[in-house]
């Protein structure tokens, strides 16, 4: 039965990690906007001009 206990613990650990990620995502505003990300990912802006040479 020790294996089952270990795996239940590991499963719960993973569960806790998922909850942590979920809470982080919600709190940090990841899902405040659920409308534009799907559109914005379609836009890959091509640079207008070649990068300027580095200057002071």
């Amino acid at each position, binding site marked *: *039965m*020790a*294996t*089952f*206990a*270990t*795996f239940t*613990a*590991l*499963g*719960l*650990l*993973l*569960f*806790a*990690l*998922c*909850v*942590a*990620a*979920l*809470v982080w*995502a919600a*709190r*940090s*505003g*990841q*899902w*405040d*906007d*659920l*409308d*534009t*990300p*799907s*559109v*914005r*990912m*379609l836009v*890959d*802006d091509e*640079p207008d001009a*070649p*990068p*300027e040479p580095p200057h002071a």
Partner: protein
Amino acid sequence: MMNPTPLRNHRMHDPQALPLPLKIDHSPVQHFAYDNRTVRDFLWATLLFGVVGMAVGVLAALQLAWPAANFNLPWTSYGRIRPLHTNAVIFAFAGNAIFAGIYWSLQRLCKARMYSDWLSRFHFWGWQAIIVAAAITLPLGITTSKEYAELEWPIDIAIAVVWIAFAINVFGTIARRRERHLYVAIWFYIATIVGIAMLHIVNSLAVPVSWTKSYPVFAGVQDALVQWWYGHNAVAFFLTTPFLGLMYYFLPKAAERPVYSYRLSIIHFWSLIFLYIWAGPHHLLHSALPEWAQTVGVAFSVMLIAPSWGGMINGLLTLRGAFDKVRTSPVLKFLVLAITAYGMATFEGTMLSLRSINAMSHNTDWTVGHVHSGALGWNGFLAFALVYWMVPRLYRRSLWSTALANAHFWIATVGILVYVVSMWMAGITEGSMWFAFNDQGRLQYRDWIEMIRAVQPFYWVRLAGGVLYLGGIVLCCVNVAMTVRGATLLADEPAEAPALAPDTDHEDQIATALAIPDRRQRGTALHRLVERWPTLLTILATIALLIGGALEIIPNLIQGALSPRIASVQPYTPLELAGRDIYIREGCVGCHTQMIRTLRAETERYGEYTRPGEGIYDRPFLWGSKRTGPDLAREGVIRPMAAWHYQHMADPRAVAPGSVMPAYPWLLTDDTDFASLPDRMRALAGMPIYTPYPPPRIAGAVQEAKSQAEAIAGQLRSQDLRLAGETKLADKEIVALIAYLQRLGTDLGKPTPAGK
């Protein structure tokens, strides 16, 4: 005063942030370049190993239809070829496709180059080196024989190292992103990285004997549970989550429209990862696994249909109003069929996990058909969509031939149908013949060969399906080669984006706290910050507790708290151990199960169903998942005659006409490795396994093995007059293997040893 929040990161619900056009982005635009070289390299590896892995698959299919294709050589016999095929297509073909797609999409979604070019190189070459190592060791018979985790421990360590390099590269890129929002695809990538790391490490825990041999720390039922927890979740986190992430990136790109519902995609992700991890036990229904664990597996498998179909529907509806594009775009053709195959395979998976259906389908070719509808349809076609989408963009030139790509699509689609339907029919034929009873209540088909003869035509048809699919990828390679001929790779693709300004209070506070020069004051400030966020604190505490709990439980397991015990079950003798390792080396588990399920048709055919306590010395467990040949759990009871096994291994068809088993002539001529037996037994007797081999027995292992071998050689000489003159018989590997086969399943009927 100007609002410091840049335009692209403002919150939609923030009224001060509106109206949009009046906001001015003050962050300086940064110029950088996407790394396309790594993407290209992974794509080439995908195609190369796709051709190799599928060709090996065709060979394996041919061997089952026409056993002469085993060539009577150890390196080309089915038991070694099958794991070579599965490893090549999963970890080399699908793996490289995943990495190509992630390296392409992650950079663009994060608006950042991959974190480290060095890590990208290391990841690419490290992974290819692992593949080469697998391609060398598996045909040599260096294998753990645990499905999809066959590679031995040094390669397992290399996999972990390369995987961690990949993780650092991905998380570093995410940390340096210039886009606040993590697009849903990135969440799927993160789940892949975390999930595979955990699964791989736990399932690979083993005690090494030499560079090429190890014994797993788990045994019997426990090893089975760990293995299928791994096996099922390898499907989840290697063949599902990364491909779903890729779908959420490449499907909208190819269709030029946003995903049907972004909300649904978020729900899809979280529900999928919360459910998948528990479904593994559905691979062990009606077995010696405790029934409650089986039921948990079934319940979660049924629930899994919801996120799976949610994802499929989200994918297909993305093409709402754009289905006309499927007519002209090969990329969309491949994507649509991939998503459809995902839906069909997940529906079938849920159905096959139901007890009643599983009773009939398990161990048959139905399962083989099921995995191939997922692998060929979902993984393969998504990989091909990626190739056709990325190659023209990497080389700034349109695809050489759309017609050829369409031809690939149709040939491969027909190939999948031919493959899957023939395996469905073979599987249902096998299941119904195994379970058929006659009027007298006895098994209708006692002779295994009857079943083999019945499915033989399906094996030929399956071979045709595989050849078609292989032909498809060859067309793909031609098309890609012609497309890139004379073209130069856009190795560093210029891009620009404003820097990401920190926009949360937390980050500011952390930055302020980190800036405190005094170490102690800094520590106090950080600690106060953590305390102020109760949720975060709770989570960190929970994680700490769980790690502690796991650490507390593992020693219990390690100290051999293996239950339940059966007093008459004793460790293998040294010779039986040598024979068992030969059985593992030859991949016998690819066709023979050692698990008599709690079903009448099985106990009628093989004898007493397998008890959990019978496997406590089985490292690894050898329950198997496919019965091309009969179950061997009670082979020692059913077929104790040594000479039968000898002749059967020499030429299976001489003993059982119609058999598709390879011949093993080298077992008759090669000498058993007696010398390493003490080392092997020491590994099994030491920490953390503690098999009861007392030191004197280990010291005398070679002597004990040789005297048992002499006894079996004596049986052979008396049972088969042709062997009467063989003097060196006892040294041969066949004798060790016979010792193991004669032992199988006999413990249950033995009297309990004295003193127990």
